[in-house]
């Protein structure tokens, strides 16, 4: 094993007393001295700052100079409407395989003369190779060495607007090149917590300055990966490698909302992506299993891997893929896959936990009310 990589903010994490853990080949902060519970609640009530510099940032530039060529090329790898994406806008996407499974989830943005793609840290080498193999003839694929920080929470706009007033004009999923007191920043109004907020890509050399400026505001605290996980779980958002992977299709994962009409049967550019036959058939006819939210009835968290049953003495119907305690709900919360007959909200299922069968109810996600600024 090679030594864990460090993000541009590593020194700051250590100076703030973070508990550092290995994650996707990086040494990352699990939590700061405040602890996961307080960090989570702070993000929901004020603004949390996250170092997500481990994620992959990639520029896809059309060799022809025509953005439509890059968009058409990316559409061959993902079942999303890339050509229809407006300049300065971003979308959630999925790299699929020929069986309809998910290779990774990603964000992609139209930045005028190129596409900007953000992928998961654990998958980034594979994703870049996949992009080069799929788009290399028509596009250059350039991984960026930049810092990436997320500012999330109901007071994120208030804080960031003190440094860059223009961010107040952005709505959910807008992306803008913005000068933040001399820093060349790429700002997206998005995140992965269920809150309003921003993801800010900056040169490595500027990451410390921007972080220091934001942390000087009373609303802003550093938040670690532990709270990032409980925040995204309450928001019903998938964690790649846990809730979605190469064996789960977008329909099984309840992510068909991310497949726009243009790519579905009858659409202007239906199919033409890996696994299209499987995925389009499942959009029309449904899948055998589905990712659902689960609210355990007691206080005991139900963790990843917990097997689910139709009744206390009934057959196995699935398993939990993410689970823990939801600080904002003040209750355990989980998501997992169940057989389609048990996927309707309100269905009672049983989880096998330490030799006991404990009840849980299938619930709609997100578990919290999202704060996205859609306007």
């Amino acid at each position, binding site marked *: 094993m090679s030594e864990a990589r460090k993000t541009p903010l590593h020194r700051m994490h250590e100076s703030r007393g973070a508990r550092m853990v290995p994650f996707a080949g990086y040494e990352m902060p*699990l*939590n700061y001295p405040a*602890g*996961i*519970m*307080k960090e*989570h609640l702070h993000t929901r009530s004020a603004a949390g700052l996250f170092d997500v510099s481990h994620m992959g940032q990639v520029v896809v530039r059309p060799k022809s100079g025509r953005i439509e060529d890059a968009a058409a090329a990316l559409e061959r790898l993902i079942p999303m409407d890339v050509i229809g994406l407006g300049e300065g806008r971003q979308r959630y996407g999925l790299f699929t395989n020929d069986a309809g499974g998910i290779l990774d989830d990603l964000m992609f943005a139209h930045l005028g003369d190129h596409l900007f793609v953000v992928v998961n840290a654990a998958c980034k080498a594979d994703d870049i190779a996949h992009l080069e193999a799929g788009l290399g003839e028509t596009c250059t694929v350039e991984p960026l060495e930049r810092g990436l920080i997320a500012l999330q929470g109901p007071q994120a706009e208030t804080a960031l607007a003190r440094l860059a007033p223009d961010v107040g004009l952005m709505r959910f999923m807008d992306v803008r090149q913005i000068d933040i007191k001399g820093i060349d920043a790429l700002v997206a109004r998005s995140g992965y917590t269920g809150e309003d907020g921003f993801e800010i890509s900056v040169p490595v050399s500027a990451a410390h300055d921007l972080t220091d400026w934001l942390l000087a505001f009373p609303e802003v605290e550093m938040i670690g990966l*532990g709270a990032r*996980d*409980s925040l995204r779980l309450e928001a019903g958002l998938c964690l790649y490698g846990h809730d979605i992977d190469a064996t789960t299709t977008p329909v099984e994962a309840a992510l068909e909302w991310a497949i726009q009409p243009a790519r579905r049967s009858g659409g202007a550019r239906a199919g033409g992506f890996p696994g299209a036959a499987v995925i389009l058939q499942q959009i029309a006819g449904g899948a055998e299993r589905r990712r659902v939210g689960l609210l355990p009835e007691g*206080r*005991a*968290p139900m*963790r990843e891997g917990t097997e689910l049953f139709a009744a206390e003495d009934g057959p196995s119907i699935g398993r939990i893929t993410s689970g*823990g*305690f939801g*600080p904002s709900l003040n209750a*355990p919360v989980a998501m997992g896959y169940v057989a389609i007959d048990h996927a309707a909200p309100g269905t009672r299922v049983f989880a096998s936990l*330490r030799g006991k069968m404990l009840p849980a109810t299938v619930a709609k996600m997100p578990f919290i009310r999202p704060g996205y600024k859609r306007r």
Partner: protein
Amino acid sequence: MLKFTEEHEWLRQDGDEVIVGITEHATQQLGDLVFVELPEEGATVAKGDEVVTIESVKAASDITAPLDGQITEVNSAIVENPALVNEDPMENGWFFKMTLAEPSELEGLMDEDAYRDYIA
């Protein structure tokens, strides 16, 4: 008498019983507790048996019986409010009381100085 185990439990003698909890060091390592499951009062336990399940936001852990004996009382206040263990691990955040099969075995555990060295 206050004694400690390598599993970061503390034991305080209280008449014929010992009170058992986990140390502040343990709570710092575990983080915020959100769930506690305690043993049945009256249960006979052997050293090393998993008698308590605790869960933090991130993970589940087991607490084992520090010595052979019988559980005489459990602290239901920490079931209602697991955060009590983080706030006051050495007093109000105790887990259970037990009588020891061999009271002399308590002598063999670490004292406070030895435990401080152990976690240093």
